[in-house]
C-alpha cells in the first residue's frame, strides 16, 4: 500500500503533521496564560469582579487547550527518536541538552502549578494562586525560549564541532549554541505571534457577544483589551518580522530567494513580487504582479542594490519555491489585515463607537482564527525554507531519518491523522461551545464538580437559564 512512497517522505509528512497540530495549541496557550495572569493581577489590584469573571471564563478554555498541547507535545518529544533517529544520534549531543532544559525549567513548572491554578483557588488563597498562575505563564514562555533555541540552531548552527564519526559535538561555549544568530529574532517574532493569536481569539469572542448584546460589560472589556493589543502589537510584529527577514537574508539567503520568488539574480535592483504563480519547471513566476526595485529597497534599503537569485544555488540545494512563496504571502497578508483591524478599532474608539459598530465586530469575528493561520504559514515558510537540510548547510534531511520500513511509518501516520482529527476536533468543538456562552457575573469556577451529585445544582444552567 505504501510502496509508492518512500519512508523518508512519509516520515517528513508525519513530522510536519504532528508538529503543525501541536504548534496550534502552544500558540494559543502561551498568549492565553499571560492574558490570564494579567486578568488575575488586575482583579487583585482593583478588586473589580469583572476581572475575576473573565479569568474564570478563560481558564476553562485554557484547560482544554493546555491539555491538547500537552498530549500533542509528548508525541513530539518522541518523534525525534522514532522517525529521525540518525538526526537524533548525530545532533543529540548539541540539541538534546537544550530540550532537557526545556523539560526541567518549563514543563515541570507549567504542569506542577497547573493543578493549583485550575482547582486550588479556595485551597491556597489569592496570593499563592496568583503566584501559581504566574508560574504557568512563565513556564509557557521558558518553553518557547528553549524550543526556539533548538529550532534556530537547526536553521543557523553555530558553536559546534564535528566529531570523526560525523556527530555534532558542543564547542567550548553553550552560549554560542543557545544564542545562535537567528534565535533572538525568531524568539521575538514567535512570542509576539502567540500574543497576537490570542488577542484575536479573545477579540473575536468579545465581538461575537457584542453582536448579540452590545451592552454586555464582560464582552466589552474583552473586546477592548484585545483591540488595544491588535493596535499596539500588530505594527510591532510587522517590524519584528522585517528584522527577522533581514537576519534570514544574511544567514539563509536561499530561503529569502524562495520567499521573494527570485529565480533569477537582479544585478541592479530586484522587484518586489506581490503575486504570481511560481513555475518550478521553467524557473520563473508566471503572471507576476510586481513593484520594480522594491525588494532591493526592503532587503537592502537601496533601490539599485543587486540581489542574487536561486540561479546562484545548485538545484539539489534549493528549497521548494511554490510552498514557501505562498505560505510567506499568507503570513504577511494576515499581518497587514491584523494591523488594519487594529487601526479600525482605534478609529472606532476615537469616535466612541468601539462597542456598537457591527461591521467592526463582524470583521473581528472573521479575524478570530487568523492568528493560527499566520502562525502555521510562518512556520511552514521557515521550516520548508530550511530544506533540503535538517541542520542547515550541515546535515541533509535525506540522511537524517530512521531505518524504518515504509509500512510502519505509513500506518502510524494514518493513525495519527485519524486520532488527531477526532480528538482535537472534539476539543476544538468544546472550546467553541464554551466561547459561544457569554461570560457572566459570578462566573462559575473551573472545576470538575460532579454534575449528577446530589445537592449540587449546576450553576451555569441557572445563570444561562435566567438570561
Amino acid at each position, binding site marked *: 500500500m505504501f510502496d509508492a512512497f518512500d519512508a523518508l517522505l512519509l516520515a517528513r509528512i508525519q513530522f510536519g503533521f504532528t508538529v503543525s497540530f501541536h504548534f496550534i495549541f502552544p500558540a494559543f496557550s502561551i498568549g492565553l496564560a499571560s492574558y490570564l495572569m494579567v486578568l488575575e493581577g488586575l482583579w487583585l489590584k482593583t478588586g473589580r469582579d469583572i476581572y475575576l469573571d473573565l479569568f474564570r471564563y478563560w481558564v476553562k478554555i485554557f484547560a482544554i487547550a493546555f491539555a491538547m498541547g500537552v498530549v500533542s507535545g509528548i508525541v513530539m518529544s518522541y518523534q525525534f*527518536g522514532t522517525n529521525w533517529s540518525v538526526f537524533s*544520534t548525530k545532533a543529540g549531543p548539541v540539541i538534546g541538552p537544550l530540550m*532537557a532544559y526545556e523539560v*526541567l525549567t518549563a514543563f515541570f513548572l507549567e504542569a506542577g*502549578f497547573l493543578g493549583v491554578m485550575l482547582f486550588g483557588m479556595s*485551597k*491556597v488563597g489569592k496570593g499563592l494562586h496568583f503566584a501559581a498562575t504566574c508560574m504557568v505563564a512563565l513556564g509557557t514562555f521558558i518553553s518557547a525560549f528553549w524550543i526556539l533555541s533548538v529550532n534556530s540552531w537547526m536553521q543557523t548552527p553555530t558553536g559546534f564541532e564535528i566529531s570523526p564519526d560525523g556527530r555534532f559535538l558542543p564547542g567550548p561555549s553553550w552560549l554560542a549554541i543557545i544564542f545562535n544568530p537567528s534565535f533572538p529574532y525568531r524568539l521575538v517574532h514567535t512570542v509576539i505571534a502567540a500574543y497576537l493569536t490570542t488577542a484575536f481569539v479573545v477579540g473575536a469572542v468579545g465581538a461575537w457577544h457584542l453582536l448579540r448584546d452590545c451592552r454586555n460589560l464582560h464582552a466589552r472589556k474583552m473586546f477592548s483589551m484585545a483591540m488595544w493589543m491588535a493596535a499596539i502589537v500588530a505594527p510591532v510584529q510587522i517590524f519584528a518580522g522585517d528584522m527577522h527577514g533581514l537576519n534570514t537574508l544574511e544567514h539563509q539567503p536561499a530561503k529569502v530567494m524562495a520567499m521573494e520568488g527570485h529565480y533569477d539574480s537582479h544585478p541592479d535592483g530586484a522587484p518586489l513580487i506581490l503575486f504570481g504563480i511560481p513555475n518550478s519547471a521553467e524557473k520563473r513566476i508566471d503572471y507576476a504582479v510586481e513593484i520594480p526595485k522594491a525588494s532591493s529597497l526592503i532587503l537592502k534599503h537601496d533601490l539599485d542594490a543587486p540581489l542574487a537569485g536561486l540561479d546562484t544555488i545548485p538545484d539539489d540545494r534549493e528549497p521548494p519555491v511554490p510552498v514557501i512563496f505562498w505560505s510567506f504571502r499568507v503570513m504577511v497578508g494576515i499581518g497587514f489585515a491584523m494591523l488594519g483591524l487594529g487601526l479600525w478599532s482605534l478609529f472606532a474608539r476615537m469616535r466612541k463607537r468601539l462597542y456598537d459598530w457591527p461591521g467592526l465586530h463582524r470583521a473581528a469575528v472573521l479575524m478570530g482564527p487568523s492568528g493560527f493561520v499566520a502562525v502555521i504559514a510562518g512556520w511552514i515558510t521557515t521550516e520548508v525554507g530550511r530544506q533540503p537540510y535538517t541542520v542547515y548547510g550541515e546535515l541533509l534531511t535525506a540522511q537524517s531519518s*530512521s531505518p524504518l520500513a515504509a509500512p510502519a511509518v505509513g500506518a502510524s501516520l494514518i493513525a495519527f491523522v485519524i486520532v488527531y482529527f477526532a480528538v482535537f476536533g472534539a476539543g476544538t468543538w468544546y472550546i467553541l461551545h464554551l466561547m459561544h456562552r457569554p461570560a457572566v457575573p459570578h462566573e462559575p469556577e473551573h472545576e*470538575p464538580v460532579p454534575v449528577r451529585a446530589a445537592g449540587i445544582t449546576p450553576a451555569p444552567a441557572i445563570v444561562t437559564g435566567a438570561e
Partner: protein
Amino acid sequence: MGINVDLTVIWAFIIAFAVFMYVVMDGFDLGIGILFPSFKVGEERDQAMNSIAPVWDGNETWLVLGGGGLFAAFPLAYGVILTATYPLIIAMLLGLVFRGVAFEFRWRDPRHRALWDMAFSVGSFIAAFAQGVTLGAILQGVQVENQAYAGGWLDWLTPFSLLTGAGVVIGYALLGATWLIWKVEGTAEAHARRLALWAAIGTLFAMAAVSAATPFLQFEYWKRWFDMPGVLATAQVPLLTAIVAFLLFRKLRGGATAAPFLLALALFALGFAGLGISLFPYIVPDSITIWDAAAPERSQVFMLIGTAIIMPIILAYTGWAYWVFRGKVGTHGYH
C-alpha cells in the same frame, strides 16, 4: 576519562530516577484508568477522576524527562530503542492522547461522558501495556549493527514481552487501587480495597514469572544474579520483596489508608532495582553500554549543572502541589 566515566554513571542513575518517578506517578494514574470501568458511573467514578485531575499532568512530565533525558544523555540509545520499539511507542503516545484529553472532555460534554470514560480507560490500558511490552523488548535485546537498529519492525513481539506487558498493566492497577484507597471514600474505597487485593496477588505472580524467565534469556543475566559473591547482594531483592508483600497483604486486610500505596511503591522500587541489576551497565543488552551511548562530556556537564540546581526545586513544588490536594477528595471535588 576518569571523570567522564563517573558522569556517565551519574546520568544513568538520573535517567533511571526519572523513569522510576514516571512509572510510579503516572503508574497510579494509568492504573485508575485501567480499573475505571469497574467503578460505578457517577459518584465513584467522579471521585476517582478528581483524585488525579490536579496532578496527572505533572506526573506525565516525568515521561518527557525520561525521553528527553535519554535523548540528551544517551542519544545513541534513544535512537536505537525508539526505532526498535516503533509501533509500541506510537501506540503508547496515542493511548496517552486519549487518556489526557478525557480529563477535560468528560466534564465538558456530559452527553458523551460514556465515550470519554472509555477513551480514558482504553487509552490508559494501551499506554500501560505498550510500556510493559517495551520493557520486555529491551530486556530480551534488540539487533544492532553499525550503531543503528538492524531488526524488523515487529521483532519486539514475543511471549516474554507480552508477559512483561501484562505484568505492567497489573502492577499499575495495584498502584491505582491503593492510591484510591488513600484518596476516596465510601463504596469507592471499599471497591478499591477489593481490587487492590487481587491486583497485589497478580503483581506478585507477574514479578515472579518475569524474574523466573529473565535469567533464561540469551544474555548474562544468569551470571549477574547467581554468581558468588554477587548473589549475597542480589538475594536481598527477592527477600525484601517477600517482606513487603507480606506487609502489603496485612495492611490491605486491616483498615490502613496510606500504607498500602506506600508499600506498593516499595514493591515497584524493588522490581526496578531488580531490572537495574539485570541490565547495568548495558542500556541495550549485550550491544550498547551506557558508555557507548553516552553524550560527550561537555553535554553531560552542562545538563548536570542544570539538573542539580533545578531537580530539587521541581521536587519541592511538586511536593507542595500534592500537599495542597492532600486528604480525601470528597464527592464535590477538592472543596
